[in-house]
């Protein structure tokens, strides 16, 4: 008894388990873990220079560099009208180009590519609101702020706040706190009175 499943012949000796390759649609009795996770996000220029890298999986520096190099090469080789999704190793890569910057996310097998595009877009909107018409130079010269904004939007690879307004408000507050921390202490404080 055979089944034709996703173009692979699977021989079934009754009773046994069905194995569907590559899919998540399983008949009764089989249990797999669906994997949804963003593994990393990279921002790089059209010349391949890295502008931001956020890793949500533990990898050595060497591995990170290797992955970055390969992925940058692969994405830069794509033509303008091509699909925003590509399969790379065992991950799905979702990328989009905004002006001179490529925003590239690596997600796991079962994740929804379209919503990842929306996440990328939301991040760009946040940057845009924060810097006021953001351009690549803003991200170069204020890279630490780009990170702070990202960390206020995504946590551990998942979106933490779905309201744009709330994210920006939180950043504003944190910035204020930083300003206060950096202002020099008043003269009185310095000589020990209050």
């Amino acid at each position, binding site marked *: 008894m055979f*089944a034709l499943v996703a*173009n692979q012949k699977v021989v079934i000796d009754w009773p046994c388990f069905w194995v*569907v390759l590559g899919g998540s649609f399983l008949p009764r009795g089989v249990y797999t873990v669906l994997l949804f996770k963003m593994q990393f996000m990279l921002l790089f220029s059209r010349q391949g220079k890295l*502008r931001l890298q956020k890793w949500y999986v533990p990898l050595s520096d060497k591995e990170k560099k290797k992955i970055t190099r390969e992925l940058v090469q692969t994405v830069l080789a794509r033509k303008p009208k091509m699909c925003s999704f590509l399969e790379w190793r065992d991950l799905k890569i979702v990328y989009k180009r905004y002006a001179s910057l490529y925003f590239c996310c690596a997600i796991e097998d079962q994740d929804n590519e379209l919503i990842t595009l929306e996440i990328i877009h939301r991040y760009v909107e946040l940057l845009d609101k924060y810097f006021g018409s953001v351009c690549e130079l803003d991200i170069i010269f204020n890279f630490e702020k780009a990170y702070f904004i990202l960390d206020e939007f995504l946590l551990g690879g998942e979106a933490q706040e779905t309201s744009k*307004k709330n994210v920006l408000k939180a950043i504003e507050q*944190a*910035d204020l706190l930083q300003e206060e921390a950096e202002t020099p202490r008043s003269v009185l404080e310095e000589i020990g009175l209050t």
Partner: protein
Amino acid sequence: MSPSVPLQEMIRAIRSARTQCEERGVIQRECAAIRAQFRQADNGGRSHNLAKLLYVHMLGYPAHFGQMECVRMIASPRYSEKRVGYLGAMMLLDEKQDASLLITNSIKNDLSNSNQYIQSLALCTLACMGSAEMCRDLAPEIDRLLRASNSYIKKKAALCAVHIVRKVHDLGELFTKAARSLLTEKNHGVVHGAVVLITELCERNSETLERFRKTVPDLVQIMKGLVISGYSPDHDVAGISDPFLQVRILRLLRILGRNNEAASDAMNDLLAQVATNTDSTKTVGNAVLYETVLTVLDIKSESGLRVLAVNILGRFLLNNDRNIRYIAMTSLQKIVGTDHNAVQRHRGTIVDCLKDQDASVKRRALELSLALVSASNIRSMMKELLSFLSSCPPELRSQTASGIFNAAERYAPSQRWHIDTILHVLTTAGGDVRDETVPNLIQLITNTSELHCYTVHKLYRALLSDISQQPLVQVACWCIGEYGDLLLTGECQETEPVQVTEDYVLDVLETVLQSHMSSPSTRGFALTATMKLSTRITENVDRIRSIVSIYGSCIDVELQQRAVEYNALFKKYDHMSILDIFPELFLDKVYSVKLSFAYNNNVQSAGLSPPLCGVSQVCDLLDLLGGSEQPLQPSPALGSAAPPIPVSAPNTVGGDLLDLLGGLEPTPITPGLTFTYTHNELQKQETGRLTVTLTASNSTESDIRGFTLQAAVPKSVQLHMKAPSGDSLPARGTAKVTQMLVFTFGSQNI
């Protein structure tokens, strides 16, 4: 927030470096300055220094000396320093670094800080790079925060818990209760975090999954609220209210509804509502629809809903946006097995996508098209696939070729069509087919005896035009060798016959032999073909002899060996039955097996007197004729084991071909000598193994001694012969010889 001037100055300096060498110089100087600053006592510019170092790190330069500084900065009371310190920790201190353990205590303290932004830093860092140990240490803290804090912290704590569960699965137990209560909150961020956490908990533990099934009605309520509610400016994206949360809830519903009728029923209406009401003009709407479709197809949905989902995918296929077409095909690929007919309806669009510019879309379309091939559409699909093969990107060629072969094998409407298709593939993409193609094609041609003439004509013509595609050349050479006589008759029913002389044919084979494009194995084919023609042609045998003897001194050892052996054959024998046409070989690829054993009795009359002498009988596949008569041969077959012993009674010899399918057929070969073959029930066999038991008995008047069985099998089959029970067959069937043979069929695909 005011920019960090020292940082920006350094960035400017680095960017203005004109060469890589200059840049390295600038960076080395800066790093030296940073290192010096680190060693100094507390000064106001610590955060700037670390920020500089992080920039340098992002450019790819080593920055490990900043790790301890990060640890120190995290412990600082100043928020500005903490912020950069934590950023540094996330960039420089992954869990593989030893120094990462040092920050556990700081994180712990910061988690209880009165300032929520400091708490937030700690949570973010833990969720990004927390190792298993850190997670175990801090899990109770996170649990506390999940219950008693403001929503800003709760949502972060939820996602931090997700990370903890991913790292240490057992800790999931700890968060179950808190997660449940978070679902009732109003804040979208908290609900989102809760849903992600519950998803993770359910994925890891089936008991937790059972418990959370009760939340399906609540989730349905929340989702309804989002879908039906009016415009909410905070969370709206192009008319969809909080798509991120919607997608997450749908995902959770999918996991809860899987394999569970009750849960699936509870969400049926909602899914139908979302599927029909979501606006699909923008990507965000399509993202929600996509998730809905995935959910519907995964749970136990009713058929109406399933049809709705497949229709949505069908609509996606027609979308202008390439991304949407791509994911539509990915999803259809997953269900093509279970909902084959539904997907068939969209076959036309899928086949059109083969012509898309994008390689990813092409790949998806190819996989899906191959899955949709069936007996009814084989001809039209094959046309499309063959035209795709001629223009497809190189990385897809071998997949296309093997897909075409598989499809052709399963659904070929006629033998001729099958052969034509394979030949077409070999001419277009000969370099990308797998090795097994050549023997498989040869077997196919052998078995289609009515098309031998047609095939050899086609291959001859193909060979005339192009000898660079090795598989094609190999098959062509073999064919010409086997059926060259058909080529020379100048007649053919199915196609225009060629008018060639023997010289022309030999010319072609010689060209292949001498061409630099031919691989060694191709040359071997050509040489053997030339040799075979010596029994099929009448005039140019000398030419063949000379070709063969030239190669007796060829550098290639294989060719040299062949040539030398053929030379020997020429010298010794006038009629070489070894070179006659192959019999039909049937090897059905999956289960049923037809084995052909040919039996020939080799006897040498040496005038010894008799009775009771044994005769050696060799089962010899090579020595076969198309006809069934063969006179007693003085020539021994190659590889005979026992020396021939004279026999008194002349036995009639038949080159009978024995088919054994269906097992228990006693087939007399010579009067008196009986073989029976039995095999196990095919259905119960493990895939690809067949055990045959051979029983031989002798009912003649004389004993037979030195009885051995030899068998040959094609390359794709492995034969394991167990030891026979004996080698003599006494007269009148008083005892039998049994032997077991085990056939293992290798990979079945071309």
